[in-house]
C-alpha cells in the first residue's frame, strides 16, 4: 500500500517537475538572443530570402549571338523565331565567328548559334543541313534554354520545309507525312520546370531540422558553460529524473516549432505560390514524427556540445551534404549505398522525400508509409539516446557533487586539524 502511494506521489512530482522544466526552458529560449536567431530569425527570414533568390523560377531571355554565314531567307527566319521564343534573346547577329567568340569572352552572351555558308543551299538541294550551337557551360540552365529553343525551331521549320518542297493533297495527309506519331510531354507537379518549386520545399525542411539542431545545441553548450562542473544538467531539485527533463524540454521545442512550421510549410508556400496539392491534414500528421525526431536528435547531439559556439562549427556545413543526400537534386537511385545509409540517420532525408511527394505531387500519407515509419523509428531511437545522454549527465553531476563534497570535507578537516595543532 505504502509502496503504491510512493509511486503515485513520484509520478505526480515527476509531472510537476516536467512542467517546471518546460517553463524554465521556455525562459531560456526567449532570453538567449543566439538561440532566438536560430529559432525565429532564420526560420522566418531564410525561406523568404531563398524564395526571393529563386523567385523567377526559369531563365528567360538567355543571351545568344548568331553567326549567320548563310545570310539567307531561311536562316533569317530561323533567327527571327529563336528571338521570338520566351527563353532566348538574340543580342547580335554577325558574320564572323571570331567576333562572336570575343563577345562570349566578354560575357555579352552565353551561346553562339552558327549557320554554315551552305545552310540554305543544302536544304534547297534536298540535303540534311546542320546548325551548330556553342554554349558556355558555366550554367546549365542557359544551355538548356538554348538547346530546347533551337531544337524546337529546327523541327518546326524542317516540317514546314518538307511540306513546301513536296506537297500532298489534303491537310490530314500533310500531318501524316511530317508527323506520323505525334507526342506531347507534361511536366507534372511543377508545370514550368521552375527552380524555386523544385529546390525550396527541400530547403524548407532542412531549415527546420538544422535550426533545431543549432538552437538546441547552443542551449546545451550554454548550460554546460554556465554549470560549475561543466555538466548539462543543473544542480536543482527539479532535475532529478531523466524522463521529466527530456519530455519537459522536448515539449518546449515542440511548441516553439509548431509555430515555426506553420510559417514555413503553410504560409511561405502560399506567399510564393509554390505547388501545394497535398492534403494539409496528412502533411501535419507527417510532420509530427519529423519534428519529434529532429527534437530528440537535437537533444542527443546537444549532449556532445561543450560550448555555445561549437554547434555552428560542427553542424552548419552538413546542410550542404544533407541537401544532396535527401535525393531531391541528385536522384536517390544514383546515391552510393554508403551515403544513402548515412542519410537514413537524419530526419531530413525521409522528411524531404515525404514532404515533397505529399506537398508537390499530392501523395497521400499511405503512399509515403516507408518514410513515415522511418521517422517514427528515428524518433524512438533518438528518444532513447537523448534519455541515455541525460541519465549519464545526471549521474555524472551527482558524482561530481559528491566528489566536491568529499574534497571540501577533507580540506575542512585538515584546516581544523591545523588549527587544533
Amino acid at each position: 500500500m505504502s509502496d503504491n502511494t510512493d509511486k503515485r506521489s513520484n509520478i505526480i512530482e515527476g509531472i510537476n517537475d516536467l512542467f517546471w522544466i518546460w517553463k524554465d526552458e521556455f525562459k531560456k529560449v526567449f532570453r538567449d538572443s543566439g538561440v532566438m536567431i536560430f529559432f525565429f530569425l532564420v526560420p522566418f527570414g531564410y525561406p523568404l530570402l531563398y524564395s526571393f533568390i529563386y523567385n523567377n523560377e526559369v531563365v528567360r531571355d538567355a543571351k545568344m549571338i548568331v553567326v549567320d554565314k548563310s545570310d539567307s531567307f531561311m536562316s533569317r527566319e530561323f533567327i527571327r523565331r529563336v528571338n521570338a521564343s520566351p527563353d532566348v534573346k538574340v543580342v547580335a547577329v554577325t558574320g564572323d565567328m571570331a567576333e562572336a567568340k570575343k563577345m562570349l569572352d566578354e560575357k555579352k552572351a552565353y551561346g553562339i548559334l552558327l549557320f554554315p555558308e551552305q545552310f540554305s543551299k543544302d536544304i534547297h538541294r534536298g540535303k540534311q543541313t546542320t546548325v551548330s550551337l556553342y554554349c558556355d557551360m558555366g550554367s546549365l540552365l542557359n544551355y538548356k534554354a538554348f538547346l530546347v529553343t533551337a531544337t524546337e525551331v529546327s523541327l518546326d521549320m524542317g516540317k514546314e520545309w518538307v511540306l513546301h518542297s513536296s506537297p500532298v493533297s489534303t491537310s490530314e495527309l500533310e500531318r501524316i507525312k511530317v508527323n506520323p506519331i505525334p507526342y506531347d510531354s507534361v511536366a507534372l507537379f511543377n508545370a514550368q520546370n521552375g527552380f524555386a518549386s523544385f529546390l525550396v520545399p527541400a530547403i524548407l525542411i532542412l531549415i527546420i531540422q538544422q535550426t533545431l539542431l543549432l538552437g538546441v545545441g547552443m542551449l546545451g553548450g550554454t548550460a554546460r558553460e554556465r554549470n560549475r562542473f561543466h555538466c548539462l544538467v543543473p544542480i536543482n531539485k527539479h532535475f532529478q529524473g531523466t524522463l521529466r527533463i527530456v519530455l519537459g524540454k522536448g515539449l518546449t521545442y515542440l511548441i516553439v516549432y509548431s509555430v515555426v512550421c506553420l510559417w514555413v510549410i503553410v504560409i511561405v508556400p502560399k506567399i510564393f505560390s509554390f505547388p501545394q496539392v497535398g492534403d494539409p491534414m496528412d502533411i501535419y500528421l507527417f510532420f509530427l514524427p519529423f519534428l519529434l525526431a529532429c527534437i530528440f536528435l537535437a537533444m542527443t547531439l546537444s549532449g556532445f556540445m561543450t560550448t555555445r559556439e561549437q554547434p555552428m562549427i560542427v553542424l552548419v556545413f552538413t546542410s550542404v551534404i544533407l541537401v544532396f543526400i535527401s535525393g531531391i537534386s541528385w536522384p536517390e537511385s544514383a546515391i552510393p549505398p554508403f551515403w544513402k545509409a548515412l542519410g537514413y540517420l537524419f530526419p531530413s532525408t525521409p522528411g524531404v522525400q515525404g514532404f515533397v511527394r505529399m506537398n508537390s505531387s499530392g501523395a497521400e500519407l499511405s503512399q509515403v508509409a516507408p518514410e513515415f515509419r522511418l521517422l517514427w523509428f528515428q524518433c524512438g531511437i533518438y528518444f532513447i539516446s537523448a534519455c541515455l545522454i541525460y541519465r549519464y549527465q545526471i549521474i555524472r553531476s551527482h558524482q561530481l557533487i559528491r566528489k566536491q563534497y568529499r574534497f571540501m570535507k577533507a580540506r575542512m578537516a585538515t584546516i581544523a586539524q591545523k588549527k587544533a595543532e
Partner: protein
Amino acid sequence: MTFQETLLCTWRVMKREVKRITSRPIYLFGMIGAPLICLIFFISLMRSGLPYELPIAVVDMDNSADSRSLIRQLDVFEQTQVYIKTQSFQEAREAIQKGEVYGIFYIPEGFASKVTSGRRPKISFYTNASYLIAASLLFRDMKTISVLAGGAVGLKTGQAKGYTDKQIMAQVQPIVIDTHPLGNPNINYSVYLNNTILPGILQLMIFIMTVFSIGSELKYATSREWVKTGGNSFTASLVGKLFPHTVIFFFVGMLIISILYGYNAFPLQSGWGPMMLDMLLLILAAQCCGILMISTLPTLRLGLSFACLFGMVSFSIVGFSFPTPAMDPMLQSLALLFPLRHYYLIYVDQALNGRAMFYSMGEYLWLVGFFILPVIMGRHLKAAMLYFKYIP
C-alpha cells in the same frame, strides 16, 4: 617600432596561434576535417558524372511487337531504366507519388495498327518536375525516342518508295542541331557542381574559423594578452593570428584543386596558375570578410551567426545553379559582395573556357578589393579587443 621588431612580434603571435590551434581539436576539425568530409562526399557522390538508370514506368496499352520494341529501345538508353511495365495509368501515377519512378511513358491502345494505317497515334510522356535533374534527363531520353519513333515511320515509307538513306534523312529531319557544350562536352554534373560547391564550403569554413579564432579571444578575455604578445601592434597581432590559418587553408584549397583538376581531370584550359591564384585570393578575401564579421558584431555567437548565414546564402546567390543574371536586379548587385561569386566567374573564364587573363582581371581585382575590409573595420575591432566588455 621598427620593421624588424614588428616581424618579431608577428612571429610571436604566430607561435601562440599555432599552439592554440593544435591544442583544441575543434580548430583542426573546422579547418581541415569539415572541408575534407565534403570533398570525399561530393567527389564520391558524383563519381559517375551523371545519374544513370533513372527509373520510369511504361504504360503500354497496346502491347504489340512494335510497342514492345519501342520500350526496349527506351530501356537501352543509359539514363533510363524501365522499372515498371503496366497497363494502368493509375498504377504508374501512384508509382510516381510513392517516389519509385520519376517519369511515365504512355503508349496508347492500337498504337501499331494506327501507325500502319496512318491514323497518327499519340505518344505521351510525363516527368515529375519536382525532381528537376532527373526530370530533365528523362525528358531528353523520352523525347528522343518519340522523335525517333516518328522518324522510323518516315524511314520505312521512304525505303518503300526507293529513296536513298540520305534523301530520307533530309525528309525526316531537314535541319539538325549540332551541340557543342564548351569545356564540358558530356555535361558532367560533377564538373558543373563540384567546381563551385567545394570552394564554397571552404569559404564557409574560413568565415566561421576566422570569426571563431578572434571571437574566442574576446569571449575568454584573452585579447589584451594577445595584443601584448603582438607588441601592442594591431597589425602584427592580426596578421600573426590569421597567417597560420591562411597556410592551413591554402593547403586544403590546393588539395581541393588537385583533386578536381588532377585526380578527376576536370577541364583546366588555362593551366594551374590562374586557378591556384584564384583559390589563394578566395582564401584571403574570405578571411577579410571574417574580420569584417567579427568587427561589426564583436560577440562570438553573433559574429558566428553572421558567418554561417552569409556563408550558406553564397551557395545560392553565386549563380552556378540558377544563373545570377536571371535573378532580381537587387540580388545581382548583392552577389558582388560574395567572394565566391568572383571565384566562380574566374573559374568559368579560366578553367572551363580558357579565356585570356584580360577578361578575368576585373574579378581578380574584386577579390583583391576585399583586402580593404580589415583596414576600414580595423578601428572597430581594435576597440572591441581592448576596451569591450564581453556580454556572453
